[in-house]
């Protein structure tokens, strides 16, 4: 037991959990695809060929075995675009959720722990942000910063930190009067360390669950923003943009949304399952079977 490293123990627990393993496998698949996309893609995702236009996928009549998921309205290979699209979608999701989680949790913990003026200041800011229509906000960012990956990340982070701040604030207010916080103060632990090292870890299970939910949300929101021309610019593919494009041809060519749709679904389920597994394993307050 003692010589086993933390990582080895983690791996052993993971292998025993079907939920964790499924989530892990799906995430690994998505990440693997994102990293190796240029090698895996059978075609150039930007190449337009008239003959591939609305080419049906394998399971429909008139399919071309070289194009597993068929072609889109501009005659591009959908399978290659799904593979390449993983890069933008997953990168945006990970960066945005990580940023929003860090900023939101720290601000929420500060607001909940200290209360008073700090709390008022932070929470009024959050409410202002909530009351402000998200699309309007995104358009403002586009106007100021110009469209692109970083604008997308900034706009989504600004929209999302509030979720974390509100949850963490509530939990921090609940934890602050507890005796173990007073005990930490009574042995001279500095205040910043109490907030970050004693309060935040107790909120972590809620944050993890929220983060896994938000990853799926971000992938979808990226679609909406890319559709408006705020996000990554064509011809770079992203799952969200592919769904936006396919929406106009839902009756004629439903396979245009199928590939990116399944990709988003699979990634979201994977992250949710893995998040659940993490919470089950690392929250010592839950009884273990």
């Amino acid at each position: 037991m003692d010589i086993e490293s933390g990582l080895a123990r983690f791996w052993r627990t993971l292998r025993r959990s079907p939920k964790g393993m499924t989530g892990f496998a799906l995430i690994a698949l998505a990440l693997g695809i994102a990293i190796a996309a240029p090698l895996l893609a059978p075609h150039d995702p930007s190449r337009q060929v008239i003959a591939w236009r609305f080419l049906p996928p394998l399971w429909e009549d008139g399919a071309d075995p070289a194009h597993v998921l068929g072609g889109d309205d501009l005659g591009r290979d959908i399978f290659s675009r799904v593979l390449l699209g993983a890069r933008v979608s997953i990168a945006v999701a990970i960066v945005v959720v990580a940023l929003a989680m860090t900023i939101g949790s720290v601000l929420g913990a500060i607001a909940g722990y200290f209360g008073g003026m700090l709390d008022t200041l932070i929470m009024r800011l959050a409410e202002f942000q909530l009351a402000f229509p998200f699309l309007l906000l995104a358009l403002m960012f586009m106007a100021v910063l110009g469209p692109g990956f970083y604008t997308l990340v900034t706009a989504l982070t600004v929209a999302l930190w509030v979720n974390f701040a509100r949850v963490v604030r509530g939990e921090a207010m609940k934890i602050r009067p507890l005796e173990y916080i007073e005990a930490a103060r009574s042995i001279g632990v500095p205040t910043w360390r109490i907030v970050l090292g004693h309060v935040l870890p107790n909120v972590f299970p809620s944050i993890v669950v929220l983060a896994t939910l938000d990853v799926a949300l971000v992938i979808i929101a990226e679609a909406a923003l890319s559709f408006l021309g705020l996000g990554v610019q064509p011809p770079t593919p992203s799952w969200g943009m592919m769904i936006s494009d396919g929406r106009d041809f839902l009756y004629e060519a439903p396979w245009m949304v199928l590939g990116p749709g399944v990709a988003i679904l699979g990634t979201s389920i994977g992250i949710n399952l893995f998040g659940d597994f993490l919470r089950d394993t690392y929250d010592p307050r839950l009884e273990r079977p």
Partner: protein
Amino acid sequence: MTGALLELDDLHVEYPARRGTVRAVNGVSLRLERGMTLGLVGESGCGKSTAGQAILQLIQPPGRITGGRIVFEGRDMRDLSPEALRRLRGDRIAMIFQDPTSTLNPVMPVGAQIAELFRWHRSGVDGAEIRRRVVALLARVGIDEPERRVRSYPHELSGGMRQRVVIACALALDPALVVADEPTTALDVTVQAQILELVRDLQTERGTAVLLISHDLGVIGEMCDRVAVMYAGVIVESGAVDDILERPRHPYTIGLVASRPRIGQPDQDIRPIPGSVPDLAKLPTGCAFHPRCALADEACRNVTPALRTIGAQAVACHKAV
């Protein structure tokens, strides 16, 4: 000059409440010498825990210390900067809380919680040395397999074990004073005795002074050199523990001692004190105990009695002889 280790002088703590200001501590003065044990005894809600928290400046807002001095090792705790106070807490002065289940952080291994003390007070000590000292401490407070237990979470330990961890935390850096607020109340009777013995052993070994806050005269009699009896935010009687338990002079102390069951005297009635503790927001005039006191007369209803010396103890009562 060798002053007392801790001296409280006319301490006042108040909590604003809708029904008026709650005067939880209403002019308490105490002295505690190095290495000695002082018991602070009284019913629930008499302000004894508040007084203990006030010593470490742990009163939670909106409550606040409104008057008096808390002199520890020659310095008034109320004058210290937040950083000076932080350095003092855990290092020179520590606290043991009532319920070990809620005193330990549920998501932090117990070893890491003890390690916090070294981390914030002994910055020169490296990780391996901290780990070695934490293991040694756990072994000293009687925890089996300390090498394994440093990584245990609080829920993996029994109540008694948790309180041993809390004691290890409090005594890790050899503080001069430990404020123990009902350290055994949340524990089984059999475990209580073990924990008290542990505290006493450690105290003798390290010369720590203890302020023991308890409602249990049995515990006080066992552990303390001196005792102060608190009622409605004030000290009504204080003296050597044997004097107080054998010859109580304040009617409240007499009632407390009489209401204690004793082994070996089955025929003796347990006589409870009639009535209950007054509302600290609406204290009676004169002596706070007069509505429950059989001896009360006009003077008791109007004039607040001061502590005066009778025999070997100090008593705040007009009638005491």
